[in-house]
């Protein structure tokens, strides 16, 4: 029992309480220990009105609780935040409403003010040794009504921080300034205060305040409210409380409880039956819920085991998962699920479950046993995959778990032998290799070159496949012609590309490819009749053009055939295609629907028989030519046409005619798809060819390839010519023959 508190209470209530206490607490050894001390206190009673005997009886009865040291449970957190918003109603000092006499307030202030408190005052005179401040209010912890007390404090010059200049620090202050300062020293006897402007003079919980001159807005809220109260007599405590914003804050109870240091959920009661010692931990809601969930989960596990035993693995898994949902980390459920995983072959998942179970209950025998078995099994799996080190780790883990587990030890020994063997083998192999190296270097080099060339060829083959499909499926002259035409177009694009940034374009294309997958979906179910009519139209146009230039084309296309390979080799369009292909190969899930699409697509676009792709190509060719015609006819500027054709390809252009735009949209995807088809179809025969080709042959193509880069400029030239040739369809024949000759010459030169 807190003796001082009891004394205080006794001196307040007097003899009657003491006799009651003697009566009620006679069996309390704590009281007996302090009783003799208290006798004197009970007689110091001052003369005052009688208190009700009921209260005294209550005190006496509950004295063991009221005066127990543990009753004062936690220290208040006296953290006064000076915030703009008020979490609770900040009230002016109570004595202002009570109208406590002047003298008493003055005494109380000097009694309670302490070093480290914060006061706010107004400068009333400045002297050589400092300045005097009339204190108007307190800030921080202590809250008193002191404005009319005329308290004066001295702030000596050594407690005024200098501003860094050499002049007098006091020159910074003027009479009438509001000053926030810390109380440095109190002379309670002479009632003198010394204040300081250094923040080190403040108590620790106030240290964030800045001292010095403040504005009116910085005055504490309780002072501002006190001023309002003193000017308006009708404003009572109650009214002010209910009108203040903080009072309607729904969480002000929590804030204040924390401020006062009262714990809310802890049961604090003066009722005997509600003392916290009567509350058992297992009666609390969380404990019961935990127990309940565990038993519920166990029920689910039992049901799951039944399912498992009768072979219904899916149902069993559902039950286990349900159990784990109810009670996460339920050991039994984890072990059961792990066993199910293990039987299903997902050893890694099984290991995970067993390990979790062992974490929750390290002595679980089944979990340990199963984990060891699963680890060994997994180790053997890894051994087969030649991941010997990982397997070794798993065996070691199993042995660490259960040192008597023979199987793991055997496996480990076997594995170690195996590792040693393989190490030896490796060493031998390395030695042999070294020997072989000296012999086979030249041969190997050759092989390397071959490989490289194969790769290059593959690349090229893929790129040229679009044209080659067409050539393979339709008559050779037309096909080669179309490829030639196409090539020229492609070259054109390439030139454009060389003027633009190469990479940028590449990126753009790939992004477009992604978009086009969506477009394709939209595009496929195009109305049959329009496409048919469209095909007819293009077909007619293509024929018209082709007929005219057929004879010349033959030669040209033949001569071009060779050049085609390099001109195509470096186009970025090809690269994107490859990229696409790469994506297909990477993603097996993506592949199958695509393949279907492709098939479907070829069916749709082709309409009938083998001519399909030639038609497609023809269509595309046609559309390109159309637009290019339109542009070069109008502006006769190849660059311009190039740009517009590009824009047509990558977005719907406004420049091209409606027809060309349509064709641009509708034809593009099929042509690309036919590329894929072609390249895929070509794959086998390409490999076949490369297999057949001897080193000499491939080297030659390699040279060709290398030359292609220097061909580019010349290609460009021909392309310009190509542009002109489109302008004058009647002269096509002549021009083509010219080109052919030019190219022949070029070849001969080389």
């Amino acid at each position, binding site marked *: 029992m807190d003796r001082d508190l009891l004394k205080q209470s006794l001196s307040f209530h007097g003899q009657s309480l003491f006799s009651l206490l003697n009566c009620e607490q006679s069996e309390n050894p704590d009281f007996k220990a302090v009783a003799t001390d208290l006798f004197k206190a009970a007689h110091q009673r001052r003369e005052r009105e009688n208190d009700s005997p009921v209260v005294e009886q209550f005190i006496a009865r509950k004295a063991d609780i009221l005066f127990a040291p543990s*009753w004062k449970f936690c220290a208040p957190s006296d953290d006064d935040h000076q915030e703009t918003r008020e979490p609770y109603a900040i009230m002016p000092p109570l004595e202002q409403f009570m109208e406590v006499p002047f003298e008493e307030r003055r005494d109380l202030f000097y009694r309670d003010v302490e070093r480290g408190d914060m006061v706010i005052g107004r400068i009333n005179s400045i002297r050589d040794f400092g300045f005097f401040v009339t204190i108007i209010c307190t800030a921080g912890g202590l809250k008193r009504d002191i404005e009319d007390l005329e308290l004066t404090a001295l702030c000596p010059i050594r407690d005024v921080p200098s501003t860094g200049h050499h002049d007098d620090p006091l020159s910074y202050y003027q009479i009438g300034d509001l000053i926030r300062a810390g109380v440095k020293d109190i002379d309670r006897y002479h009632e003198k205060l010394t204040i300081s402007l250094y923040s080190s003079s403040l108590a620790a919980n106030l240290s964030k305040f800045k001292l010095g001159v403040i504005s009116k807005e910085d005055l504490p809220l309780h002072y501002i409210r006190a001023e309002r109260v003193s000017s308006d007599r009708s404003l009572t405590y109650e009214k002010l409380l209910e009108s203040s914003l903080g009072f309607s804050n729904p969480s002000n*109870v929590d804030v204040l409880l924390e401020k006062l240091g009262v714990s809310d959920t802890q049961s604090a009661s003066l009722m005997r039956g509600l003392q916290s010692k009567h509350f058992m931990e297992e009666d609390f809601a969380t404990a019961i819920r935990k127990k309940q969930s565990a*038993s519920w989960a166990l029920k689910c596990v039992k049901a799951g085991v039944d399912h498992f035993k009768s072979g219904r693995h899916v149902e069993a898994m559902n039950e286990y998962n349900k159990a784990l949902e109810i009670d996460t980390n339920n050991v039994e459920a984890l072990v059961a699920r792990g066993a199910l995983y293990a039987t299903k072959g997902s050893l890694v998942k099984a290991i995970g479950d067993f390990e979790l179970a062992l974490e929750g209950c390290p002595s679980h025998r089944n979990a340990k046993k199963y984990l060891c078995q699963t680890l060994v099994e997994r180790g053997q799996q890894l051994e087969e995959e030649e991941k010997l080190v990982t397997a070794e780790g798993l065996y070691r883990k199993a042995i660490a778990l259960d040192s008597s587990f023979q199987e793991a030890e055997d496996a480990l020994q076997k594995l170690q032998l195996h590792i040693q063997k393989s190490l030896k083998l490796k060493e031998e192999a390395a030695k042999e290799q070294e020997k072989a190296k000296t012999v086979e270097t030249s041969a190997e080099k050759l092989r390397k070159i071959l490989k490289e060339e194969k790769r290059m060829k593959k690349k090229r083959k893929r790129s040229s496949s679009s044209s080659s499909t067409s050539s393979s499926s339709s008559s050779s002259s037309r096909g080669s012609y179309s490829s030639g035409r196409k090539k020229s177009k492609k070259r054109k694009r390439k030139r454009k590309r060389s003027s633009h940034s190469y990479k940028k374009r590449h990126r753009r294309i790939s992004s477009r490819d992604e978009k086009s997958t969506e477009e394709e979906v939209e595009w496929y179910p195009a109305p049959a009749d329009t496409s048919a009519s469209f095909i007819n139209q293009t077909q007619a146009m293509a024929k018209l053009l082709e007929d005219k230039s057929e004879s010349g084309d033959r030669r040209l296309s033949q001569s071009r055939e060779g050049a085609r390979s390099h001109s195509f080799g470096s186009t970025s369009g090809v690269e994107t295609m490859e990229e696409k292909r790469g994506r297909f190969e990477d993603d097996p899930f993506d592949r199958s629907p695509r393949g279907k699409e492709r098939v479907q697509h070829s069916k749709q676009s082709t309409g009938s028989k083998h001519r399909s792709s030639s038609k497609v190509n023809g269509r595309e060719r046609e559309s390109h030519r159309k637009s290019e015609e339109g542009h070069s006819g109008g502006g006769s500027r190849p660059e311009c046409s190039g740009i517009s054709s590009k824009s047509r390809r990558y977005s719907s252009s406004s420049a091209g005619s409606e027809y060309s735009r349509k064709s641009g949209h509708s034809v593009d995807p099929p042509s690309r798809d036919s590329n894929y088809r072609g390249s895929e179809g070509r794959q086998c025969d390409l490999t076949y060819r490369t297999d057949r080709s001897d080193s000499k042959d491939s080297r030659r193509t390699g040279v060709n390839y290398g030359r292609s880069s220097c061909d580019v400029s010349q290609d460009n030239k021909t392309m310009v010519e190509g542009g002109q040739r489109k302008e004058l369809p009647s002269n096509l024949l002549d021009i083509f023959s010219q080109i052919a000759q030019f190219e022949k010459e070029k070849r001969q030169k080389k």
Partner: protein
Amino acid sequence: MSANVDVARSRVSSDAGDTEASPDTKIHFRVCRFIIETGVKLGMRSVPMATACSLYHKFFQSANLQVYEPYLVAMSCIYLAGKVEEQHLRTRDIINVCHRYFHPGSDPLELDGQFWELRDSVVQCELLILRQLNFQVSFEHPHKYLLHYLLSVRSLLNRHAWSRTPIAETAWALLKDSYHGAVCVRHPPQHLAVSTLYLAMHSYGVQIPKGEMEWWQVLCEDITKADIETIISELLQLYDMEAKCT
């Protein structure tokens, strides 16, 4: 003058309560104890707990104890109070804790048909309470008044004296205990707050400097000394009741 009349009246009523309504009051006391105990086990804060008790008292002000099962009403009051005061409580927890209260040491309920029936009855009873109280289920509690008063009084006292004296704890405990009876629905919240603070300060013999007005007059204008004494005697009766009921 009026104070004396008040005192006299309160004496009469309390005397009458002791003799006449004794069985009912005892039942209510026990049920309120049940609410508070359950609340502690559920981790309820004081305000929701106070709301639960107020709901219960309000309900039985107009309803007959013979017609409605008080413990079921109490469970529903807890559930409803959690909703009103935005401290979500799960019915499963409430049923679990209550089940264990009635069957100490027993295993938790199986989550079977019986459990769901119990849950349904709690929810149905909640609707009944709502209708009985005309959907007026939010109360102004003395808690926030008391805390603001405590803060004002604290700044008037010497800080060391304050930190030595558990006034806040005692006043808070008194206020919480007051919900064992119907004091909370009979008196305005301010009066209750002032009375508990008064009793707490008197218990420790803490005195506040006297001015023109008493501190409690300032805190609450319409309260009289007699009011305070009435409430205090009602409060203290609850502590006597505990001895009778348990």
